């Protein structure tokens, strides 16, 4: 308990250092573009691939499990859409991104710490936390919603593909009717709101573990693992809280 409180305090102090006005806006925007490209755009391919496959699998699984003649066929499309919009594209996708992006952030900052690059910045009078962490946080908060929207489209597209390829109980027309049936636009907003919060959690939690590394390569590896585990737990916790706040 004491250790957890200590870590929370350290995290708060790091956030106070991070969330301040950048020393030079031109350098901040340059870093921001770099981070959006490195953390966001480079994650696009994995988001698209995973979403198409999971969308396909969700549609097939639902089709296999809803064999009753009492349940209309469009339910497959409807359920696939609801799962993708409500949970998959935001929460599950961000859990996956916590692994990819979170470990990248923790290992990059951790390596900079153990090779004294962060000390070098501090000696120059640069606010290292602000320079290194803020562009990552802002970049992810701006771009993860874009990834989530891509994931929604490609996930539903995967379901549509399944309806064409698999056949059986699933027909493309019924599926397409299902994905349009009783559409609630707020679910998209809900997903985007969640993804912005997750982006903040992933970037700051991972940066915290990287920034406070002490030791060498082994500790950087451990910090990277801890960053992914803690980010994932925090995402799940935030999911419960946000769902309660926004949907109930």
């Amino acid at each position: 308990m004491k250790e957890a409180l200590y870590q929370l305090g350290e995290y708060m102090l790091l956030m106070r250092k991070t969330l301040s006005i950048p020393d030079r806006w031109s350098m901040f925007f340059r870093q921001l573009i770099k981070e959006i490209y490195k953390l966001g755009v480079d994650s696009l391919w994995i988001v698209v691939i995973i979403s198409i496959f999971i969308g396909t699998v969700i549609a097939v699984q639902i089709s296999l499990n809803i064999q009753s003649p009492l349940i209309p066929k469009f339910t497959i499309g409807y359920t696939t859409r609801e799962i993708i919009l409500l949970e998959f594209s935001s929460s599950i996708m961000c859990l996956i991104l916590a692994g990819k992006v979170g470990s990248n952030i923790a290992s990059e900052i951790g390596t900079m710490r153990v090779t004294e690059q962060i000390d070098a910045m501090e000696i120059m009078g640069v606010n290292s936390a602000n320079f290194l962490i803020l562009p990552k946080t802002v970049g992810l908060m701006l771009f993860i919603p874009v990834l989530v929207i891509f994931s929604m489209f490609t996930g539903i597209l995967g379901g549509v593909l399944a309806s064409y390829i698999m056949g059986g109980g699933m027909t493309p027309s019924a599926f397409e009717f299902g994905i349009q049936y009783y559409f609630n636009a707020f679910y998209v907003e809900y997903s985007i709101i969640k993804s912005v919060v997750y982006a903040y959690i992933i970037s700051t939690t991972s940066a915290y573990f990287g920034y406070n590394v002490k030791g060498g390569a082994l500790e950087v590896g451990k910090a990277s693992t801890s960053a992914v585990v803690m980010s994932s737990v925090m995402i799940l916790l935030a999911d419960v809280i946000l769902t309660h706040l926004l949907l109930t």
Partner: protein
Amino acid sequence: MVEVKHIVKTFEGHTVLNDISAVFEEGKTNLIIGRSGSGKTVLIKNIIGLMRPDSGRILYDDRDFISMDKPELNRLRREMGMLFQGSALFDSMTVLENVMFPLNMFSHESSKEREKRAMFCLDRVNLPGAEHLFPSEISGGMMKRAAIARTIALNPQYLFCDEPNSGLDPKTALMIDDLIHGITTEYKMTTVINTHDMNSVLNIGDNIVFIQDGRKEWQGTKSNIMDSGNKALNDFLYASDLFRKVKEAETTMEEG
């Protein structure tokens, strides 16, 4: 001039720096020497503010470093340069971007002027043609020179070097020593070097502070280090083959 007064630093009850006082003079290369684990790195980290001493004072030209407020501290930091043992170049930036980094952060000159200044610094450390290479693509000696170029980009008044010759061959080490000594006299900087390289001691030791077990044992220059009469310093010096041979040659000359 940098002055440390009665610095004490302890870690979990273990005293690493025990009442150290020393003066590091302007325009001179001031060396801190001592065995591994004697407290040299902790002392330099306290002087540059990466650690905070438990007690004592650190004065930069009579400005009290420890009691400074944040804006004053940031101003002073821009007058300081630090050359780290592993160079600490930013991996994600090219050599030129590394040298331009402090200029981009703090200089109000135009982009062209900043680049010109960075190229001048690279030229000063004999590193032309390497500006577009990344740190992983250059040798250890080149990394040190690039780090020196980054350090002098903002014309610092105070230069600190932590083991600048570690991992370098003797010839490159000598070149780095000469470079540091050259820029120290040229820009009238106060340079503090933490080393246990005996070549450096004989080559550029204008002012030498010897530390043993966290205590200052001796302070002098390269010309009187051999005749210090300090047993701990002699034990440290004559563990080096170089110093033994120099001493033997001196004795032979005196007898001859």
